[in-house]
């Protein structure tokens, strides 16, 4: 295997505490900027879910020196693109542009994160738009299922319970003062960093960053996340949708897993063998052998306050019970017996083989650098990733399966026809607390 390396990086910290990483890649005259800040939806006050998401969107709708509309107009006029978004732990601003527009790109990022306007009219409009999008998402059963995943598992007041864009009810309660306050207390140089990757010179990045971000000040803040309570009994959140001919199925369970744990690589390998790869057991049993679905997947979500493991698929109304039975049976089999050596070998080669494909573009390299910073992964993380994957043994993968593959009481989200859901739960023999949530309250 030819080694995989990140491009050489230059790293420095501005006087205000903002950390900056510049990495040069010269193949194409392009640059990618990624600004990351500790302002995710887990900082939303209870009852105002959607605040971080709305705040990030509004960064692009005007600053103290750019009228609403001028931010995107400026970068799109030269063929560039700017995006802003939040996830559960962080918010991001990213720019893709021609390398010659680095000064403009950097100046715009600094402008939007340090002095957003939160113009009253724009704020109201963005709130209305977010509520409209949530209403529209009720027509998309996969989106409804996804948004209700952690909400089904966690108590409603846990910071991870609400979906990142919030609920129609919580977004309606957000006012301009909430946004201004959230930005002031959550986005600060000490809790942010900037990654610049592309056909750029590190000295120029430093000079520009000092100019653009130098005057930015803000109070730092500490993370504060309550641990999440474990469920003692499985739970089903059933969401009825009119005229469905297919039911969306999601299952989620806790997975206490961190990037630097010794069991991290065994867990990644076991996931590929179980449901993450196209020849995994679940794909084979659910799709290939039984034709029950088009799509099957499993994944870990490793959040700052704890991890989750989830399953995702869909099937026609008549076969919900069969799909659930296969899922439960295969989960138990993996937990109790682990995997055959050839399944683990294939999963390892698959993970190791695909790894370089995630490092092709500037955007991907910037994301990989951000990951090493966020999780303090160390210089050798990327170059040694494939070697660490290949070192996983079937025994270690079995241990990961036993710990993470729905060993504890789980939550199940089913979106589709009420009767099909009810029959499916009975057919699969699931003994759970059942919550019937009207579609109107599911977004």
């Amino acid at each position, binding site marked *: *295997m*030819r*080694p*995989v390396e990140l491009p050489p990086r230059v790293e420095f910290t501005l006087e205000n505490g903002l950390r900056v990483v510049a990495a040069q890649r010269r*193949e*194409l*005259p*392009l640059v990618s900027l990624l600004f990351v800040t500790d302002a995710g939806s887990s900082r939303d006050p209870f009852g105002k879910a959607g605040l971080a998401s709305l705040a990030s969107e509004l960064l692009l709708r005007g600053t103290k020196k750019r009228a*609403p*509309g001028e931010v*995107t*107009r400026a970068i*799109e*006029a*030269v*063929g*560039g*693109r700017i995006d802003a978004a939040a996830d559960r732990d962080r918010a991001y601003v990213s720019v*893709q*542009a*021609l*390398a*010659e527009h680095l000064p403009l790109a950097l100046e715009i990022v600094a402008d939007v994160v340090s002095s957003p306007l939160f113009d009253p009219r724009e704020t109201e409009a963005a709130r*209305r*738009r977010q509520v*409209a*999008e949530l*209403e*529209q998402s009720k*027509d*998309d*059963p996969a989106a409804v299922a996804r948004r209700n995943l952690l909400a089904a598992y966690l108590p409603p007041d846990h910071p991870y319970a609400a979906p990142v864009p919030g609920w129609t009810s919580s977004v309606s309660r957000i006012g301009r003062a909430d946004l201004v306050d959230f930005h002031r207390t959550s986005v600060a140089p000490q809790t942010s960093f900037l990654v610049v990757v592309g056909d750029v010179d590190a000295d120029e990045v430093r000079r520009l960053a000092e100019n653009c971000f130098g005057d930015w000040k803000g109070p730092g803040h500490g993370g504060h996340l309550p641990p999440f309570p474990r469920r003692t009994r499985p739970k089903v959140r059933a969401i009825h949708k*009119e005229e469905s*001919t*297919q039911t969306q199925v999601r299952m989620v369970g806790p997975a206490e897993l961190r990037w630097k744990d010794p069991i991290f690589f065994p867990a990644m390998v076991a996931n590929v063998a179980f449901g993450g*790869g*196209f*020849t995994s057991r679940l794909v084979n049993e659910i799709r*290939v*052998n*039984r*034709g*029950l*679905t*088009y799509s099957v997947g499993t994944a870990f979500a490793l959040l700052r306050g704890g991890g989750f493991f989830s399953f995702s698929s*869909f*099937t*026609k109304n008549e076969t919900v019970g069969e799909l659930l039975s296969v899922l439960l049976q295969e989960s138990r089999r993996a937990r109790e017996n682990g995997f055959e050596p050839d399944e683990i*070998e*294939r*999963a390892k*080669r*698959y993970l*190791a*083989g*695909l790894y*370089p*494909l995630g490092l*092709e*573009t500037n955007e991907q390299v910037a994301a990989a650098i951000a990951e090493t910073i966020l999780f303090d992964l160390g210089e050798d993380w990327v170059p040694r990733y494939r070697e660490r994957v290949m070192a996983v043994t079937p025994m270690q993968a079995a241990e990961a399966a036993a710990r993470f593959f729905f060993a504890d009481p789980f939550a199940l989200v089913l979106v589709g026809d009420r009767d099909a859901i009810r029959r499916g739960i009975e057919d699969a023999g699931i003994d759970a607390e059942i919550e019937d949530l009207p579609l109107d309250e599911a977004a």
Partner: protein
Amino acid sequence: MPASLARTLDSTRFPVIERRLDNGLQILLLPRRSVPAVNYTTFFRVGSRNEEPGRTGLAHFLEHMMFNGAEKYGPKEFDRTLESVGGTSNAYTSHDLTVYFEDFPSEALETVIDLESDRMRALALAEDLFESEREVVKEERRYRVDNDLFGTMEEALASLMFSTHPYRWPVIGWMEDLDASTRQDALRFYRTFYAPNNAVLVVVGDVDPERALGAIEAAYRDIPPGPPVPAVEAVEPEPTAERRTRVDFPSHAPALLLGYRALPATHPDTPVVEIIETALGAGDSSILMERLVYETELASDVHVSHDLRIDGSVFMVFADLPPGGDVSRVEGAIYEELSRIADEGLPAEALSRARSIVRASLLQSLAANGGIAHALGEHQVVFGDWREAFRVIDRYQAITPEDVRRVARELFREANRSVVTVVPEAA
């Protein structure tokens, strides 16, 4: 145009090696060492446009069966073999093309050549797997169309826009036809369209070109060529009036989908339509986003697309409305903007913005092996020359406001328009 960009987007900077085997298989190979990986993409000149009524969806169904065993690698072995050498694979079917691609570490090239040549030479189409795959495809249809607002609207739009041409049916096919298709149908389709003379193979990445070409030739050269592929002769008559339908879908908010019949992909004015598409809908500062979403709030989101097709492309505008929104006001505002372009062309600033965006997107697509392989392959298949992927840059540059006006006037005629709406019952 910035000088750095002009240099990068010059086709002479891409040392593509071209070969054609005696059986007609065309090969494009571009060595590139940015990461130790390779993209291997096979384009077949077949899509839903080559299907017959009563057997719609067959091109896509066959795409699924291509993963279910051939002569040397039996059922389930394609993906298992590929994953065990660290590779991944996928495929898609469009109205015009069926495309298979693998991404894998450099060492796996010979395995991939063996896998792909095996299924081009002798697909198994096992009866039992044909039956279980039929159910998988039906689930895909329920997911993408029957239980999806946009999927339902797009299917209705195609039925309005085309009355004669195969573009009138969805790529995934009608449910009834998915039930009716037999293994024999799939076999006949495979024999007709999956011959080497109907394919283009593109390999981009970390390869030794001579060794790679040698291995490809050794693996594919004994696959016999097929007979000439039957031409698609259906000609869609010119529409004479606007067509309109309201779709019944349990929805929480109204939605609007407009379709205009645009030019064949190879038409010299197609780049002009792409510029219009970009000016109208690409980015938050595009004409329709500013007008409908930010200034008037008539819509919460707008998507403009231009689906390039061999026998006539499709230009679409899709608007999501807020609950209780007024579809006719959204329509009116869109028509005003389209008429403005048809009357006045695009202002210099909007034209320059659109040019910058299309150039930058092309450049972005060249950052990964798969993006390059797609750009080269699609242009080779549709235009007969991969260099067209780069020539289009000069065409964008040469477009004048008068070109925009002329093309928009023809495109945005009322009689050329089809309209699909969804309005919730309570509204």
